[in-house]
């Protein structure tokens, strides 16, 4: 009985320390965690030869194994708190280096203690430092394998299991299973030729199972006390390459990625500059031509209708220029709009965008109708949802030669992969979009691309906004198979 109490106390001491450290902030938490891991690593090497607890007639658990289990648990706490898989890589490098140092140090101390001329006040047996190379190699490889396996599985589980409680429970199970795996593999690698290997494996598995159950309690407590940290860890996929890539390789990858991002930004800037220059030239040309015609017709009184037509044309061009400037400004604000998403009433936004169109294009015959069987729909977005819908409607108006411009906005529900979406279809009777252009409409601009067929920023911008709201936008023909009869822009937004 006293045996068990000491065992519980040992587990408690090893478990309490990282639980306390997890509540500290910033650099202090970081440093203390790494220092504690270093201590546990040393203990896992030394304590195995110093003491063990007899849990039952067949189960004996050494101090070294308790320290090793605590080390895995502390690493789990640290990675979850910092949300950084490079910690694993740092620990792997440290273990490799420390094991070399330990092995050399142990060999030296073993030689010293065997020599009677060396003073050994506590009469410590040199056998304590009799570390064989196969045990060192087995131990090192297994620690690395088990750490990488555990966090690899954690990342994979994040991808497929979306439920927080289930994910936390699976993490606990994975921790226990990794320990059991260690109980199975370590004797195989370290004592391959030992005649008692079978009993070592059985004992190893049983012992590690008990340790897994014992340390799952502080892990469970950590999950409750650090619910928010664990939620953020579960929600944020971490790059698995951080587990294994050398810093130099990672640096090369980062440089390549920066280079790609730079080229992409350069292409985008070139595209927008080119589009802006072209469109401004067109707008100015249309205004100039209208004014020239007004001058030409002013002497002819029967040309009053033409004056009205020409002044309306000038107004339209100014509106076009204003919209373009507005779009360019929004592009520069894109990086800021990722924050501040909130619950927005969809109908309110759509009605406001319709009012904008009717006011701006007052001289055109426009009929925009909303058809919906659902009411009171809310989506996660911000004020830029209005700009997205404005751009979609502007597109429907501008690329439309019909005498009466008709736009039907159909709102319904759609479910995909278990997520409920609001589906907004904007159907117009415009000139339509050819199939080969549909594919490129929302894609990023390439430097090598023929930009002569790219027609404006509107839908590109709408796509960027919708994507930031975790939605999707696509374009189809209003009449399937005949693009010339108009377009159907389909927007999906996750419903609150």
């Amino acid at each position, binding site marked *: 009985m006293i045996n068990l109490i000491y065992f519980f106390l040992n587990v408690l001491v090893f478990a309490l320390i990282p639980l306390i450290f997890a509540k500290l902030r910033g650099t202090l938490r970081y440093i203390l965690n790494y220092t504690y891991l270093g201590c546990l690593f040393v203990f896992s090497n030394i304590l195995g030869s110093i003491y063990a607890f007899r849990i039952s007639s067949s189960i004996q658990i050494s101090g070294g194994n308790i320290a090793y289990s605590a080390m895995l648990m502390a690493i789990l706490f640290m990675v979850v708190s910092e949300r950084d898989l490079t910690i694993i890589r740092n620990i792997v490098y440290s273990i490799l280096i420390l094991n070399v140092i330990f092995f050399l140090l142990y060999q030296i101390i073993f030689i010293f203690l065997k020599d009677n001329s060396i003073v050994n006040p506590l009469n410590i047996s040199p056998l304590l430092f009799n570390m064989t190379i196969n045990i060192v190699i087995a131990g090192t490889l297994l620690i690395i394998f088990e750490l990488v396996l555990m966090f690899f599985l954690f990342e994979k589980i994040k991808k497929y299991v979306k439920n927080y409680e289930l994910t936390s429970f699976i993490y606990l199970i994975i921790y226990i299973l990794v320990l059991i795996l260690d109980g199975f593999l370590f004797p195989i690698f370290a004592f391959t030729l030992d005649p008692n290997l079978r009993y070592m494996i059985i004992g190893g598995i049983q012992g590690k199972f008990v340790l897994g159950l014992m340390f799952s309690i502080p892990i469970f407590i950590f999950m409750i006390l650090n619910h928010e940290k664990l939620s953020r860890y579960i929600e944020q996929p971490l790059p698995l390459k951080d587990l294994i890539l050398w810093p130099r390789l990672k640096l090369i990858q980062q440089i390549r990625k920066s280079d790609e991002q730079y080229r992409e930004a350069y292409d985008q800037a070139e595209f927008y500059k080119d589009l802006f*220059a*072209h*469109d401004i*030239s*067109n707008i*100015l*040309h249309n*205004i*100039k*031509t209208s004014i*020239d*015609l007004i001058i*030409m*017709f002013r002497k002819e009184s029967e040309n009053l209708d*033409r004056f009205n*037509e*020409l002044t309306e044309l000038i107004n339209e061009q100014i509106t076009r220029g204003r919209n373009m400037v507005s779009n360019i400004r929004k592009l520069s604000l894109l990086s800021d709009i990722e924050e501040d998403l909130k619950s927005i009433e969809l109908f309110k936004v759509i009605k406001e965008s319709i009012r904008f169109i009717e006011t701006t294009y007052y001289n055109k015959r426009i009929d925009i109708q909303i058809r919906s069987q659902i009411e009171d729909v809310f989506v996660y977005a911000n004020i830029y949802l209005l700009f997205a819908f404005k751009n979609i409607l502007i597109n429907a108006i501008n690329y439309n*030669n019909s005498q009466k411009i008709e736009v039907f906005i159909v709102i319904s529900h759609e479910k995909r992969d278990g997520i409920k979406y609001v589906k907004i279809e904007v159907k117009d009777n415009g*000139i339509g*979009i*050819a199939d*080969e*252009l549909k594919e490129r409409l929302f894609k990023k601009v390439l430097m090598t691309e*023929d930009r*002569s*067929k*790219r*027609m404006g920023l509107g839908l590109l911008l709408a796509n960027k906004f919708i994507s930031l709201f975790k939605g999707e936008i696509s374009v189809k023909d209003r009449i399937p198979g005949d693009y010339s009869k108009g377009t159907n822009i389909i927007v999906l937004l996750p419903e609150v």
Partner: protein
Amino acid sequence: MLLRNIGHEVIGKALNGEEAVKKYLSFSIKPDLIIMDYRMPVKNGIEACKDILKYTNNVRIIFASADNSVEKIVLSLGVLCFLSKPFEIQELITQIGKALTKSIF
């Protein structure tokens, strides 16, 4: 409006290069002059010009575009002139006059 006012008849308009080529090929009496833009959806003005010129050399084309980076390519096709937007309407009227007095290539 302008072209009608100076005595010309506009027999067709196209919203993209492909439509321009189709319309040209469909006319039984071909137009005396085509005023072509460059940036258009589906098919741009240069591609449309090449398609029309594959069909016939018996055509007059004036290019008017806000994209003056393509001027050299356009002129190498054999079009009559390239007008860079924004331009004066008097310039267009002058070029139309010159085009209609020129024999076709």
